């Protein structure tokens, strides 16, 4: 389906330099910025983890999920339920528990959706996410339309997540760990099979690979990693509501992956930062005359999305790569 689109699996040196500089910048950022911007960047890192988890499906395996936010939200809710009313939950129980909850849900939903292809997959993932949305939206016991508060950040014993800076570096560490894990996965035999499924699933089947199992594993893993991001989101904001599982966030994640450049995880990170920054700028636009341009941020965002799809289908990383190298690394 998306086989024709070029995938920068091997990152050219120019891109690697940019990424290394980015990591240095992220590590130094809390020392040079205000709390407001540090927590904004922490949120961007969380969404970058979320975008990377989607990239495993979208960029690597060629499965376009429009319901990925469901797994993001589920683990946040799991944290809310695991946090007692009287005090914090232990991070070392809550984190694996919440991630497992998302992974389990992804396994269950994946069992149904992975047997569909192309356009069906898009519609069905969206529909299942909506089902999860209604499960929480309709039930008062699950928070209903108001959502749930998480009054205490999980207790990590070794460090204190209540401290903004500690939370920032914890998130950065998770981001780096997930990136390293996924890059390693991309070049493992498992990752190669997923890439093979993207390029030609029939051929992979003919070669004897049980593609259903591989796709289901990818879907489950992606769901669990989305849960990791959702867990961090819940810790940071202390609040979960059903809207976080809606299809707007799912579509934003698709956009982040496209914007950065898909199939290599680095693009997902770049895309998440760029998307959130653009969103922030649009919401901050001043009023011109009687017309409040910032209030109508959705208009600019809509135009921005349409423009990116038309003008830069290879994403920002693709642009960086072709800027620094004369020879085209793939067809656009």
């Amino acid at each position, binding site marked *: *389906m*998306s086989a*024709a*689109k070029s995938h920068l699996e091997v990152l050219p040196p120019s891109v690697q330099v940019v990424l290394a500089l980015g990591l240095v910048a992220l590590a130094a950022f809390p020392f040079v910025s205000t709390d407001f911007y540090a927590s904004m960047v922490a949120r961007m890192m969380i969404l970058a983890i979320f975008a990377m988890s989607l990239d495993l499906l*979208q960029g690597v395996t060629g499965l*376009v999920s*429009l319901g990925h936010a469901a797994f993001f939200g589920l683990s946040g809710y799991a944290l809310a339920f695991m946090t007692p009313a009287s005090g914090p939950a232990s991070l070392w129980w809550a984190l694996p528990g919440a991630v497992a909850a998302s992974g389990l849900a992804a396994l269950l939903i994946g069992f*149904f*959706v992975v*047997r*569909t292809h*192309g*356009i*069906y997959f*898009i*519609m*069905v993932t*969206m*529909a*299942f996410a*909506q*089902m999860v949305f*209604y*499960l929480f*939206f*309709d*039930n008062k016991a699950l928070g209903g339309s108001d959502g749930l508060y998480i009054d205490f950040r999980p207790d990590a014993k070794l460090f204190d997540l209540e401290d903004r800076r500690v939370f920032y570096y914890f998130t950065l560490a998770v981001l780096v760990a997930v990136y390293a894990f996924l890059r390693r996965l991309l070049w493992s035999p498992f990752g190669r099979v997923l890439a093979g499924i993207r390029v030609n699933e029939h051929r992979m089947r003919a070669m004897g690979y049980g593609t259903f199992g591989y796709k289901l594993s990818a879907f489950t893993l992606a769901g669990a990693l989305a849960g990791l991001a959702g867990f961090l989101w819940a810790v940071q904001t202390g609040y979960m509501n059903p809207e976080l599982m809606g*299809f707007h966030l799912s*579509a934003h994640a*698709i*956009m982040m992956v*496209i914007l950065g450049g898909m199939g290599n995880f680095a693009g997902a990170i770049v895309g998440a930062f760029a998307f959130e920054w653009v969103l922030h700028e649009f919401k901050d636009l001043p009023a011109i005359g009687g017309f409040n341009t910032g209030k*109508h941020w*959705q*208009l600019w*965002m*809509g*135009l*921005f*999305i*349409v423009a*990116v*799809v*038309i003008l830069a*289908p290879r994403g920002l990383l693709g642009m960086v790569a072709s800027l620094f190298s004369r020879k085209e690394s793939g067809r656009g």
Partner: protein
Amino acid sequence: MTFATFLIQLLNSVQYGLLLFMLAAGLTLIFGIMGVVNLAHGSFYMLGAYLAWWLASLVGNLAIAIAVGALVAVAFGLLLERLLFRHFYHRDHLDQVLMTFGLIYIFEEMRSILWGDDVHGVPVPALLADSIALSDAQSYPVYRLFMSAVCIALATGLYLLISRTRLGMKIRAGAFNRDMAEALGVNIRRIHAVVFALGVGLATIAGMIAAPISSVYPNMGSQVLILSFVVVVIGGIGSVRGALISALLVGLVDTFGKVLLPAVSGMLVYMLMAAVLLWKPEGLFKQ
């Protein structure tokens, strides 16, 4: 459940199912023939409802508002197809998803700038404001019957158009084998434009006739969009007949679910979809 209650729910479910069909028919045709997944289809429903409210308050007559609105919608559909969608027929689904998602934002803000963010009610026309008594305490509004009648008339018209006219023959030929149809002299570009405008028109009319009973509010398109997707998935992509049967089924499950199992009613339709997927991954009437 008394018989009168049962009858009311049955009529409601048919009416709701037919309304969903109006959206799903366009979605399934646009996908089946042009291969485009259109997330902005729900926005046409929303724009239709606002258009009906705005035109009705201008001319004071819902029927005229709907007639004018339908023409505006078809013209808008033709324009949109020419400027944007035509260039996405051969792009992959990912690009289509994002482009049409961007359109959702654009259409919502267009609505916000033109008509504001308020919720509006649209009065039921006096001629149809009656209700039919079913028992001492219960009655059924005539307007809902009228809605069902309009949907049935349009569905019949669509059926006749596709199966009995020369244009319909060309549409079917284009869906079956695009290149062959083109080689035989069918202007496939014009067929695409017609089908797209038809889909936009149906979704807009659905929004306009639904306006008096559902009221008019921002983002009203997203819920019907997702339910229309479910209808299309259950019915099988590209099949109008499948969309009709599955829309009625979804209407039935959703309406009776709300009465009988209120705690899980929001999820029932999706469980139905899951069950169908297990049984027939390509939908009930995949062509």
